[in-house]
């Protein structure tokens, strides 16, 4: 115990002395992510064709987090996001609304019915003739099939249902379609990604395409990939949705944000998801 303590003290001293310029994060950028000792996660791979001229490699945000944050995602008993998956498992079987249905009424066992779903969302829905995010699909089920109230887009109940559905695809490669009927919306999302908003005039690309792997103050910039969403953020100790994070980023450019659940953020979600095609689904991931 004493030995452990003194080691920690030494590490703390080394940190205090060594990272004045380099920022606080001591990321293990060469780390390999294996969950529960068996599920291998692709955290670096070649970019999808549409990004081939912009990036040499696509990289999960996990790579840029501090070693102790990375470790939390390696075991489901350590991953606080899994607590919310457990709660959502109960939600899955809970009857709500006027039709006397739960998710399980139509979709039975979530492990079977939702395997692979998260990897292909946002996705074109033929019947509704629209691109649907996972959140939109969840709310469509609730309002149209269950006769229940829609969930608020960025709130905990939605985030944990997304986490439950995401975890059934964990380890599968992101594979969001960008052509055919979704192409116009994908182009809209792409334009948003490169638009410099707010009084700071920053685009998504300024930080996450041009400057990833560099420190901005003590923050180690990632590529802003969404394969890990919903993410358990240590800074606010709860699950965060992609739209919640988008809103925070746009706000930090001193801009008027778009609304979570808006057509604009849906388009951005589609485009950003497609930038991660090839990375493994990680949700619920752990970030700072």
């Amino acid at each position, binding site marked *: 115990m004493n030995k452990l303590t003194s080691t920690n003290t030494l590490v703390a001293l080394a940190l205090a002395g060594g*990272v*004045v*310029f*380099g*920022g*606080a994060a001591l990321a293990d950028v060469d780390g390999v992510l294996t969950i529960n000792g068996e599920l291998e996660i692709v955290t670096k791979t070649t970019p999808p064709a549409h990004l081939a001229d912009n990036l040499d490699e696509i990289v999960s945000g996990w790579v840029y987090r501090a070693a102790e944050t990375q470790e939390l995602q390696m075991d489901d008993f350590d991953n606080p996001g899994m607590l919310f998956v457990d709660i959502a498992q109960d939600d899955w079987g809970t009857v709500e609304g006027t039709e006397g249905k739960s998710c399980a009424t139509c979709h039975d066992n979530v492990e079977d019915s939702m395997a692979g779903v998260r990897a292909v969302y946002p996705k074109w829905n033929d019947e509704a003739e629209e691109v649907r995010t996972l959140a939109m699909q969840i709310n469509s089920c609730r309002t149209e099939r269950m006769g229940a109230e829609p969930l608020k887009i960025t709130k905990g109940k939605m985030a944990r249902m997304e986490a439950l559905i995401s975890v059934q695809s964990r380890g599968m490669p992101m594979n969001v379609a960008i052509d055919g009927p979704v192409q116009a919306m994908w182009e809209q999302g792409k334009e948003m990604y490169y*638009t*410099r*908003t*707010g*009084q*700071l*005039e*920053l685009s998504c690309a*300024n930080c996450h395409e*041009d*400057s990833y792997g*560099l*420190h*901005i*103050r*003590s923050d180690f910039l990632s590529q802003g990939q969404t394969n890990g969403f919903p993410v358990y953020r240590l800074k606010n100790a709860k699950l965060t949705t992609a739209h919640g994070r988008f*809103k925070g980023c*746009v*706000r*930090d*450019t*001193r*801009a*008027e*944000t778009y609304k979570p659940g808006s057509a604009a953020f849906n388009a951005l979600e589609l485009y950003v998801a497609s930038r991660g095609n090839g990375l493994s689904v990680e949700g619920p991931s752990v970030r700072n």
Partner: protein
Amino acid sequence: MKNTPLTLVAAVCAVGVFSGAAMANPVAPGAVAFDEDGAVAISLTGVAGDAVNGAKIMRTKSLGNCISCHEVTALAEFPFHGEIGPNLDSTGDNRNAAEIRGILTNSKNTFPGTMMPAYYKVDGFIRPGNRYTGKAPEGPLDPLLSAQQIEDVVAFLLTLK
């Protein structure tokens, strides 16, 4: 007019605060004259910059927050310094006041496409917000730094040699 004495006091105060010839008319953000390389030759206030205050502006998150992106050895006691922009340790050797003033006012005139924000600009933005609230602005925007704060940072950066 019951208010007259107060009005008088206010008028006297205003004269008192702004009576210095230079302080009376800081150059407005929209009126700054850049040369073809993006430099701004004339002081925004006519008042010499305070280098000590400039250092404080550079390291303070709610002010310039310059070290968020730039490494500055003279400010090493204030972590953490970013690495987005260039190290500024030799700025006083490499740049004159006009060039630094221009870069701070609107660096995009000097470095087209740069990620650096314009610190003395109030319009021409896409979806500008009310500071960091994420909401629409309630009125005209203030520049990120005041004219005198720009001059203070110019003064500090000139000391980096």
